[in-house]
Structure formats: C-alpha cells, structure tokens
C-alpha cells in the first residue's frame, strides 16, 4: 500500500488525473480494438474449429460408448465397444498388428531412402533441379487412385514385376494374392514416395555450414566419420520432424490398401483405417467405429508423446547446447 505512491514518477502526478485516465482509456480502447480485429480475422477458423472439429470430436466420444446405426437413436452400452475390440474382435487385433508392422517397416525405410537421396542431391553439380523433380514426382501423385490402380497392375500376375522376374528365370509370383507378400507391395509403394521427406532433408542439409565439414576433414574424419559425427547429429531436428509426421500419416493409410489389395488376402493388409471405414460405412456400426477412431487418436497421441520423450536423447538442438 505504502509502496504504490513511491513508484510513481513525480512528474506524472503533475499531469493531473484527467490526462492520466484519458491515456489509460485510449490504451484500453486500442487493446479492445486489437482483440476485436484479432478475433474477426480468426473467426472463420474459430467457427470451423468448433463446428467441424471440437463438437464432432465430442459427439464421436459419446458415440464410442453407444450402439448406433444412424437410423435408430444411439443406445448407451458403456465400455462394451472397447471390450469387444480388445477381447473378441480378432479382425480388429489383426488390423492393429498389420498397421504397426507397416509403420515400423515403411517409415524407417522411407526416411532412409529420403536421406540417402537428399545427400546424393546435395551437390553443386548441374542438373540437380531435374533430378529433384524426378525423385519428387511420384510423391505428388502419392494418394491418388490412379497410382494405386497402376500399382495393382504392376504387381499383378501378368504385371511388370513378374515380367522382369521372368527375364531372370524366376517363376511368376502372386504378389497380391499371397498372404506373405501382399503387404510388401504396399510398403514398396510407400517407399517409392519418399519425395517430401527428401526435400525437407535437403533443406536441412543446406543449413549445415561447409566449414564444419572442412574442419572435420582437416582433423582426419573420413566420409563415414563425417556422416555419423556431423551430418546425423546436425540433421537430427529435421529427422525428428520427419519421423513424427511420417509416423502419424503411416497410421492413417487408407486409399492404397483399399484399392491395391482391398485388405486381403486373409486380412493381411487390413489396415486400421480400412477396417474402421468398413465398420462405419459398410456395416454402419457408427458406435463401434467411433470407439476405434478414439483408440486411434489415443495411439497417435501416445506415439507422438513417446517420440518427443525420447527426442531429448538423440535430437541435437544447437541453440540449447550452446558452447
């Protein structure tokens, strides 16, 4: 209480309370105008966020505890959907293991290819933009039905892959019909589309100053030493970002499985998103599918959190490390 007058500057008291109040009021008015303008600009997103994201999410959470076929009213069933999922629904567990297998194999492979190609293209030679375009081109048609249909044909019984194998004297393989091979055709499709992580790696590689490599060379580091001691650590924030994004998208693969293999043979490519789609829009089990969607959401959140948690051990941020 007694401190308050002490902090005021003597001159300010001379200004008179009227001017001071006016100053304060105008500042408050400006702040209000700023708030108003700010919310006016983000209004479209805010409305969409509530209308198309938050409320649907709440509705989905409610539906997850019900039995609902759209035509009749939702019937509350408690935890039954979740119980059924993990204890009785063998196809559900199959879809979980298929998706985890796919993510565990396809994501690291795709990132490895992306990094290898980014390093190859990170030179001052001529024609780099042409190569960059060629390697990126498959990725822009990544999710299209056209490419998925093409893939189905390439790996078909009379497709290109078998034709190449025939030249080598290998008997034709039923790639899409064999339970052991079908998922690998989808992994191959994923690896083929390493364009975006490649471009991100390339942008990251360009940030590494040449002097660092020069200094390492003078200290006697060979190409492998430079790769493991300089490139990988300095690139780790980019790698981490790629890993998180690719893992999240990996969990949601749908179109490719739907078109190329249709989940078969024997459910060996029954991806989570595909099974969810079937439950929701083919059997119209909206409650069960909502429960599945929420488990997916939690799995993605958990996986992202885990990646962030381990990142402290291997992601190197220059700013934090200091000298």
């Amino acid at each position: 209480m007694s401190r308050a007058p002490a902090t005021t500057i003597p001159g300010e008291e001379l200004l008179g309370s009227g001017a001071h109040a006016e100053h304060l009021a105008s500042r408050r008015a400006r702040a209000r105008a700023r708030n108003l303008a700010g919310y006016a600009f983000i209004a479209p997103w805010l409305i969409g966020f509530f209308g198309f994201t938050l409320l649907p999410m709440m509705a989905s959470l409610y539906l997850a505890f019900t039995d609902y076929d759209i035509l009749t009213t939702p019937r509350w069933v408690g935890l039954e959907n979740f119980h059924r999922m993990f204890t009785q629904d063998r196809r559900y567990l199959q879809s979980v293991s298929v998706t985890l297998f796919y993510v565990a194999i396809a994501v690291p492979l795709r990132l490895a290819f992306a990094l290898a190609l980014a390093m190859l293209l990170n030179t001052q030679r001529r024609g780099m933009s042409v190569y960059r375009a060629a390697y990126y081109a498959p990725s822009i048609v990544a999710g299209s039905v056209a490419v998925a249909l093409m893939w189905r044909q390439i790996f078909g019984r009379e497709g290109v892959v078998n034709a190449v194998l025939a030249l080598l004297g290998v008997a034709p393989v039923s790639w899409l019909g064999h339970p052991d091979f079908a998922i690998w055709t989808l992994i191959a499709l994923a690896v083929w589309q390493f364009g975006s992580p490649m471009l991100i790696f390339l942008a990251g590689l360009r940030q590494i100053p040449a002097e660092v490599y020069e200094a390492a060379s003078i200290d006697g580091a060979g190409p492998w030493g430079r790769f493991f001691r300089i490139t990988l650590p300095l690139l780790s924030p980019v790698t981490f970002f790629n890993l998180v994004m690719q893992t999240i998208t990996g969990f949601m693969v749908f179109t490719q499985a739907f078109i190329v293999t249709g989940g078969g043979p024997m459910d060996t490519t029954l991806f989570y998103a595909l099974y969810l789609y079937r439950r929701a829009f083919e059997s119209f089990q909206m409650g069960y599918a909502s429960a599945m969607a929420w488990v997916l959401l939690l799995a993605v959140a958990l996986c992202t959190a885990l990646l962030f948690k381990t990142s402290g051990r291997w992601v190197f941020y220059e700013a934090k490390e200091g000298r």
Partner: protein
Amino acid sequence: MTNGVVTAASARRMPTRRRAAWLRTLVYHGAVGGLGFVMLYPILWLFGSSFKGPAEVWTDVMSLIPRHFSPQNYVNGWAGFGGVTFATFYKNSLIYAIVGTVGAVMSSALVAYGFARIKFVGRGFWFTCMLLTLMLPYQVVIIPQYVLFTKLHLVNTFYPLLLPRFFGMAFFIFLIMQFIRGIPKELDEAAEIDGCSQFGIFFRIILPLIRPALITATIFSFYWTWEDFLTPLVYLNEPKLYTISVALRSFADASGATDWGAIFAMSALSLVPVFVVFVVFQRYLVQGISTTGMKG
C-alpha cells in the same frame, strides 16, 4: 623460379585430374540418373501403356513405348460407366478442386494474418489448438460429420466436401503465417500510423506480398482435393456425382480385368492436371515443403 616448376608439374598432372573429375561426374550422373529413371518408370509405363493396343498391353508388358500408337483406350474409357461419361467426373472433380481451393486459401490467409500480426487475448491458446488439429486423425471427425450431413439431407451433394474448406485449414494457415513473419513489421506499422485499419493493412499491404505463399497453398490444396478419395467415397453415392478418384475405382471394378487399357487411359488422364501444375509451379512447391517442412 619455383613458380615455373610448379606450373610445369601441374600442367602435366592436369589432364589426368580432369579426367578423374569427368569420370566421377559420369558415374554420378549414371547412378543418380539411372535411379531416377527407375523411380519414374511406373509413371512413364502408365502413360505408355495407355496408348497400347488391347493385345500389346499383355504381350509387351514392360515396354514404355507402344509399337502401334492407338487412342482407342481413351475413346473406350471416356465413355465411362452407367451412362455417365468421364466428362462428368472431370467436371465434378474440377468443381471440388476449384471451389474447395478458393475457399481454403482465402479463409486461411485471413486467419494466418490474424495469428501472425495481431496481438489479441488468447492468441497463444488458439494457435496451439490449431497446431494440434494437424495431428488429429480424420477418422475421429468424419463419423459425426457424416451423421450431421445425413440429418441435414446433404449426402449426395457437394456441400459436405466444400463447406469445411471455407473455415481455414491448419496446414495452410501455418504455411502462410510462416511467410507473413518474414515481412518487415515496419510496413504495417507505417500504414497503421497513416490511419489504415487492420483490414486495410491485410488487403492493401500483406495480401500482395504473400502471393508466393498463396500460390504454394493453392497448389497443395488443388492436389489434395483432386486426389481426395475418402471424402467423396463417403458422401457421393450416385455415379453422376462421382469425382475422378471415386469414378476410377468404380470403373476398375465394373470393367474388371477385361479392359485394363481403358483403365490405364483414364488413370493417366486423371494425372495430367497434377503433372501440368507440377511442371509449371515446381519452384513454389519445393519452397513450400522446405520452409514449412510438411507432407506434400
């Protein structure tokens, strides 16, 4: 004196060193170019096969260049199925891609300006919310959205596809924000002193300057709507409303294994706009991915 010795020695060494460099370049281009060709092979093969005759599709599976150029596959394919031709599917896809993209880019630009330049109460909180939606599985919202649009009798219209795009899309908001941050603040401060309103600043100063970001967002939005499969699959159940992606799938199922030539032709045709945009705007695409570091 010593100088002369050095130059004489290096002159003798020069050709071999230059030859080694030349050889390295050759090996490099051989390897990187060869691998690039393997990468592009499936796409080239698709376009090549679409011009092959019915017999050649199976006998000369691997070849990229058809022995007899035949536009017959395109004629057969264009006829479509169920009395609906591919002209309709193309038109539907264009409506979705163009209207959806205009809505998404315009609304995202507005929102991006609000987040990037105006300091309002709660900005940090809403910004975090927006970033979190980037990671949200679409499956969590599509079921309630479907229920909602069913109750509104809007299934089998374009509204469920187009409407959500007019409320800003997190990825584009983020992309445009990154770009706005690079514009010096003095510009809008000067305009503010001159009595320009926030809307005036946005339309007169920021909007012309963020053109590259808007083009990048437009390209991505075009790709994602053009290639979108799940949303049209869920909401459009009548062939006359099908977009290309859903139509291709039905077409492949309907004609089965009988007319792969026509399927190739229509698949190739569906990719033409994608590649045209890619060739014309490649620079913007690469920049967009490198600066925001996102999926493409």
